[in-house]
């Protein structure tokens, strides 16, 4: 192919035992927008890092501009015209736009005199080329997020980039800002640049992309032209088609197909079965909201003995809801009713007193204090109960630690070993055990098995099931779709800070994904449940 900018063939990449990419093929042509789609953990970030040279692939080949590249480093990728624009622009906030562009594009000569007029002129010219109304003398700090992205794009153009990767560029933009960005992307396409566009928003993909590739579990499932199914249009025609986007590109069928491609697998039967019937309502939320972190209008019941899965994409407001319930960012609207009593929760201490436990995301690394012994970590949340007189009782602490370690099968040499000496899965068990020691009525789990190996994962699943069987109400946040489907008795799907769908357990993965992505037809259909 003559105008192929980038060709990846059967690229593989493993991190330890985790196979992040299992043979991904992907190509990008000049003058096209190629969307990359996939659920969390499908391998998108890893693929991007391979393309930008941040990760070296274990296998497969990379061709850029028709040339085989054996060893792609970030510097080489830059030289070959690959630029990546991230969701959060990586600019220096205290420098001006011209200085930022200069720092990226000028040769580094530490003691050479800066040619300010030409630096300014170049910045102004680049900004003008993409139609950005940004002054070269503006401090980056004073720019809005999309303006900063435009500066990034200007840098990419200035560096002669032919391959521009945009990683969820619209995640924090308003509708108007999105339009502005789209105009620039279309400009880029018209000038022969190839754009790899990553987004969770299906409507954007239909508005912008010429082709779409779906990644699933580290494999490229399918690359397809965007448009009415079975009626592919040539890329050149698409430029016009996307301009007068109207009813004739009616995306429903294709959208549905896309979702099918993203989900497309059977929920395996490795999950432990539910053993209990849900009991009384433990937690009831009525129009709960918190303006500080964007949670709004949450109405939800959680029953004793039930695992309620909280599904949604990253940034949908699930962790934020958990933080509201745990008093980390207290609610400012609506009601929390706990065991029939209306309560206000303004601090973690109050949440604990009400019988709420929150096991935070492992990824944030705040679940376990790494420098402290395991035993200290385990008793951290029950000081008042275990040590009534302010004096620590090491005997009681050790007994409890040994019990917890045995109960949850934490793999450690002794309870005195520091928390940091444990593997990720075992740290997660310690974090869980700490909160089980408080004998909570409501247990909130935030990504309980993220970054945990397969063995520990199924152990944690069994523990969660057992806790529900013992009558605990479990609210489980998870981005792992099979986990949500396999573990939950009911599934609440969040999007944009609120619950958009309530689905029964063992739902169709397609429905969950559709609700999470904001396919309104599906969401309205299932809201009644």
């Amino acid at each position: 192919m003559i105008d192929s900018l980038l060709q990846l063939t059967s690229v593989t990449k493993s991190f330890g035992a985790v196979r992040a990419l299992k043979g991904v093929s992907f190509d990008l042509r000049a003058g096209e927008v190629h969307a990359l789609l996939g659920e969390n953990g499908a391998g998108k970030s890893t693929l991007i890092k391979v393309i930008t040279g941040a990760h070296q692939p274990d296998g497969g080949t990379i061709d850029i501009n028709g040339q085989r590249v054996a060893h792609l480093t970030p510097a080489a990728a830059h030289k070959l015209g690959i630029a990546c624009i991230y969701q959060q622009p990586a600019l220096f906030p205290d420098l001006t736009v011209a200085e930022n562009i200069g720092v990226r594009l000028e040769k580094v000569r530490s003691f050479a005199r800066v040619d300010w007029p030409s630096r300014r002129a170049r910045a102004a010219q680049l900004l003008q080329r993409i139609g950005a109304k940004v002054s070269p003398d503006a401090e980056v700090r004073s720019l809005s997020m999309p303006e900063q992205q435009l500066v990034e794009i200007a840098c990419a153009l200035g560096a002669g980039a032919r391959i521009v990767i945009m990683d969820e560029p619209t995640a924090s933009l308003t509708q108007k800002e999105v339009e502005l960005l789209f105009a620039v992307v279309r400009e880029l396409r018209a000038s022969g640049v190839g754009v790899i566009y990553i987004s969770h928003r299906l409507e954007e993909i239909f508005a912008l992309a010429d082709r779409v590739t779906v990644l699933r579990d580290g494999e490229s499932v399918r690359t397809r032209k965007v448009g009415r199914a079975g009626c592919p249009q040539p890329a050149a025609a698409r430029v016009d088609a996307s301009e007068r986007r109207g009813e004739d590109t009616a995306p429903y069928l294709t959208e549905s197909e896309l979702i099918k491609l993203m989900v497309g697998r059977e929920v395996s039967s490795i999950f432990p079965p539910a053993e209990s019937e849900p009991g009384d309502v433990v937690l009831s939320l009525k129009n709960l909201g918190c303006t500080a972190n964007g949670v709004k209008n949450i109405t939800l019941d959680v029953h004793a003995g039930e695992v309620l899965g909280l599904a949604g994409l990253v940034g949908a407001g699930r962790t934020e809801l958990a933080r509201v319930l745990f008093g980390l960012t207290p609610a400012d609207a609506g009601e929390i009713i706990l065991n029939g009593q209306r309560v206000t929760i303004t601090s973690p201490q109050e949440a604990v007193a009400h019988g709420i436990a929150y096991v935070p995301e492992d990824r944030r690394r705040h679940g376990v204090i790494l420098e402290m012994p395991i035993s200290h970590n385990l008793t951290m949340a029950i000081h008042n109960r275990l040590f009534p007189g302010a004096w620590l009782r090491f005997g009681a602490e050790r007994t409890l630690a040994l019990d917890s370690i045995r109960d949850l099968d934490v793999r450690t040499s002794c309870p005195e070993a520091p928390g940091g000496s444990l593997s990720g899965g075992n740290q997660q068990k310690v974090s869980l055990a700490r909160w089980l020691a408080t004998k909570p009525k409501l247990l909130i789990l935030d990504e309980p098995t993220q970054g945990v190996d397969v063995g520990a994962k199924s152990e944690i699943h069994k523990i969660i099931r057992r806790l529900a069987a013992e009558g605990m109400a479990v609210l489980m946040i998870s981005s792992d779709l099979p986990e949500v489907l396999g573990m939950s008795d009911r599934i609440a799907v969040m999007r944009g800070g609120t619950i958009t769908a309530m689905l029964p357990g063992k739902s169709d993965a397609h429905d969950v994904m559709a609700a999470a992505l904001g396919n309104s037809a599906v969401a309205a259909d299932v809201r009644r449940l």
Partner: protein
Amino acid sequence: MSRKENQSFLTSAATSATRRHFRELSVAAALALVLLVLAVVAPAFFQPQPLLSLLTREAPTLVVACGMALIIISRQIDISVGSQFAVCSVAAGLLAASKLPLALVLPASVALGAAMGAINGALIAGLRLPSIVVTLATMVTWREALRWQQQGAFVNLPDGVQWFGLSQLAGQWALIAVALSLLVALAFATKHLAAGRFIYAVGSDAEAARLAGIRPQLTTFGVFVFMGALTGLAAMMNVVQSPQVDPKSGTGLELKAIAAVVVGGVAISGGRGNLWGVFAGLLLLACITPALTHLHVEAYWEKAIQGAIILLAVVADGVRTRKERN
């Protein structure tokens, strides 16, 4: 468990304890080495009276260093203690000069220190300002306020204040006893009190501590108040050593305390270290001056050697942290 396994278990437990306290043990070893050299080369160092004077002089510093250890373990710093010390000293002197009984002067000094610590704590924990900036500001403020108020004048103390009205020997022993019992009590408390553990937890990872239901801001505030109270006590322990109060006393005290803490193996990044190490660190630094005198080395070298010891301690910690991270 077979005997051999049992034995290997015991040795491994012993090794892990050694490894855990390696830093404290190495400071103690360095101190022992210095004392050994002195015993061979200059046995005169071990005459009781000069040794007693040395320990008495260092007693207030030990009290301040104990507080500073808690501050640094909680991942903060307090460089205003020298100024707090001077303010408390002068206030105690003026109160004593106005014939207030010592039994009331002492709590007044402690309370004044605690109040100044509370100001630091409120700004740092309440407004979440960086402690280095806050305590720099209060350091200058207290020192200048004192200069304006005293105009550099010494405060003469009435009879019966020096050495608490006891003999010098009894007074010296009393001060050493106060400092050592405080050290023991605090070393015990940091290990056996929930509050002590909270300090370590907050210093290790304040966000993790908060998620575990601990109040990091309250802990930080408490540590600064306690630091102030200890400074007030230390000021009093200094006032009773002479017939006058110098309004410039306590100059450089914060650096002495921080040096002892750092040499004693408390991680400047918080969450690690203990008070026994701080004690060894303080003694090590305090022995340098008399050791040089006895070894007939010019006194100019004193600061240089102290600086080298501090640098060595920091480098050792840095190397260890980097090794652990890899």
